[in-house]
């Protein structure tokens, strides 16, 4: 760690891992509710568990992005963070707002939560992934503004690099797109159009910039490859991400009441969306193959390569599978979507945060890399989580294919719930894979507590 202020990233990373674990616990709850419909009913109904599961994902990834930025920006800019105190204040505000929101979801009916948080004054609630009370949304805006101010001031007084510029464009984009969550038009078509400006332009637009910047930073650190080479890759990846991703929004405009031409635009541009993810894989592998030093933190390199591969498979391949309008006509909103969502989020965004944590955490704990034993635990965590996620995706895909067939494609289509009953075997298998994933999370967390001779500054130099 070059600057002491980078240490503010630590609480962010710890919170991210904590909330991630909670997300998985709710995921398992949901997995059981798919097959045992009244499990935990009426305390935690399916819709609430689902809301907590997806909202926690967004929140913990945001914690991860913030932690990653607080770690990365001072080092890149070659100055101390503008205000570590502000970063810590914002951390506690964000964490308490997140926890209060989740408690709100669980403790009172959603309608009551809307009432007590003043949703009547500025109605923004009730939309998938953006279920947060308006007050929480305002809180998020305040926290993100403070965060951007802090980073912006740091970059202004320090060195400006391509990585920090790309990261900032991504983060500013994240903030700007989120503002559309406050726009809640009466017209349902307009509502959906702009809802996707948050949801799609986040994950298939600006978040890819953040991913690229973090990946580039970690690769520079662990491979020692020239910055110029890494920057050129980064430029190409983000250009592709934006070219394909922005118009790719059209793949959400197929059936919501928008004009026909979106079926063409959406299909074509989203069919190209795997390109930036494929380039990301090539980027990670070729940089690590051409590395100019053997960094003792092996597991960080594993996470970086894993991010490339899993993001390409989950976002690229599984996304392409159902993105063409004629295919999507049948698969829309089935378990195929769930399969894609799971692997894409894990591969792209969960794994990039863990890549950064894997690289930065040992540094913040005063070592270059963890002990071989701790690293091997982390590697086990990596494989347990990753293989489990592959299995979850495959089982959900199988469920999805069967669902499409029984519910939509045959001459005698069956109703939703009748079909769901016939998918039970896949849901049980998915649940088992979910338990495997939780075991992976446990192993991963345990790796932070494994002792052994860490690689310090002195023996790293040797």
């Amino acid at each position: 760690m070059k600057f002491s202020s980078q240490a503010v990233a630590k609480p962010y990373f710890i919170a991210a891992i904590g909330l991630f674990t909670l997300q998985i616990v709710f995921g398992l709850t949901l997995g059981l509710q798919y097959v045992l419909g009244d499990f935990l009913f009426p305390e935690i109904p399916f819709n609430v568990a689902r809301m907590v599961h997806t909202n926690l994902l967004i929140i913990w990834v945001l914690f991860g992005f913030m932690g990653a930025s607080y770690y990365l920006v001072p080092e890149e800019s070659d100055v101390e963070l503008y205000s570590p105190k502000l970063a810590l204040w914002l951390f506690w505000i964000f964490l308490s707002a997140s926890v209060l929101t989740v408690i709100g979801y669980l403790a009172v009916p959603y309608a009551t939560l809307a009432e007590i948080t003043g949703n009547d004054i500025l109605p923004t609630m009730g939309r998938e992934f953006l279920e947060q009370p308006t007050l929480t949304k305002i809180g998020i805006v305040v926290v993100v503004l403070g965060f951007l101010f802090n980073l912006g001031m740091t970059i202004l007084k320090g060195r400006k690099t391509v990585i920090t510029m790309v990261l900032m464009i991504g983060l500013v984009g994240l903030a700007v797109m989120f503002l559309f969550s406050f726009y809640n038009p009466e017209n349902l078509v307009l509502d959906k159009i702009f809802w996707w400006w948050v949801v799609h332009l986040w994950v298939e637009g600006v978040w890819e910039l953040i991913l690229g910047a973090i990946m580039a930073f970690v690769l520079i650190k662990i491979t020692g490859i020239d910055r110029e080479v890494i920057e050129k890759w980064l430029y190409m990846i983000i250009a592709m991400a934006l070219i394909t991703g922005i118009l790719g929004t059209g793949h959400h405009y197929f059936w919501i009441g928008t004009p026909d031409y979106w079926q063409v635009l959406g299909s074509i541009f989203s069919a190209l969306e795997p390109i930036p993810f494929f380039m990301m894989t090539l980027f990670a592998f070729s940089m690590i193959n051409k590395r100019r030093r053997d960094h003792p933190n092996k597991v960080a390199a594993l996470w970086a390569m894993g991010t490339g591969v899993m993001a390409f498979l989950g976002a690229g391949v599984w996304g392409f599978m159902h993105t063409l309008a004629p295919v999507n006509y049948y698969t829309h909103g089935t378990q195929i979507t769930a399969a894609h969502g799971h692997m894409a989020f894990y591969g792209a965004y969960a794994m990039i945060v863990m890549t950064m944590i894997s690289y930065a955490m040992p540094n913040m704990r005063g070592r270059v890399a963890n002990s071989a034993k701790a690293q091997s635990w982390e590697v086990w965590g990596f494989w347990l989580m990753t293989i489990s996620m592959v299995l979850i995706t495959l089982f959900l895909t199988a469920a999805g294919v069967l669902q499409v067939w029984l519910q939509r494609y045959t001459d005698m289509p069956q109703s939703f719930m009748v079909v769901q009953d016939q998918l039970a075997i896949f849901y049980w298998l998915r649940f088992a894979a979910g338990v495997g994933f939780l075991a992976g999370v446990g192993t991963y967390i345990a790796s932070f507590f494994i002792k052994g001779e860490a690689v310090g500054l002195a023996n790293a130099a040797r």
Partner: protein
Amino acid sequence: MQPDKAITTHASRQLPGDLAMWLFIGAELTAFALLFMVYASSRALHPEVFAQGQSQLNSQIGLLNTMALLSSSYFVVNAVASVKAARRHWAIGHLLVAISFGLAYVVLKSIEYYQSFSAGYGLTTNVFYQYYFLLTGFHYLHVILGLILLTWVTLKVAANDYTVGNTSGLESVASYWHMVDVLWLVLFPLVYLLH
């Protein structure tokens, strides 16, 4: 003619411009190829609608535009050669002519759009117009981007930022401009001429 010959042999061995630009061009061509295919298959499905729509297009303006883009590309080729031969003023002159031809395209295409819109045709008129406006509109935006890039390299040539042996940026932009030209050479017969 000696320097020119040296340039030819040099260029034949090396990719003009930056590899990143070629990747970008590859992606652009892929997107357009997909659009062309969708256009073609849609035309096969609705031959009457397409025949009717195509007969309304102004192929004279289309032809003029083809000539404008081809001439513009020619002057860009000359400009690159001039920079490589260290004839900066010539290069600026050629680039300005190239930009003028590009602008002529934009003006003519705008007039054509204006005529279509005034006649009541739009993106949602029917399946032919949907593709006509999508395809040509996309291309139109690429011409505008190309013109911005050409203006930028003209300023850089004027500031003497490119020297013999250091013309990668200029070549990248030139390659992009040729791509815009080539796309139109497919688009024009496909949309205007093939009946």
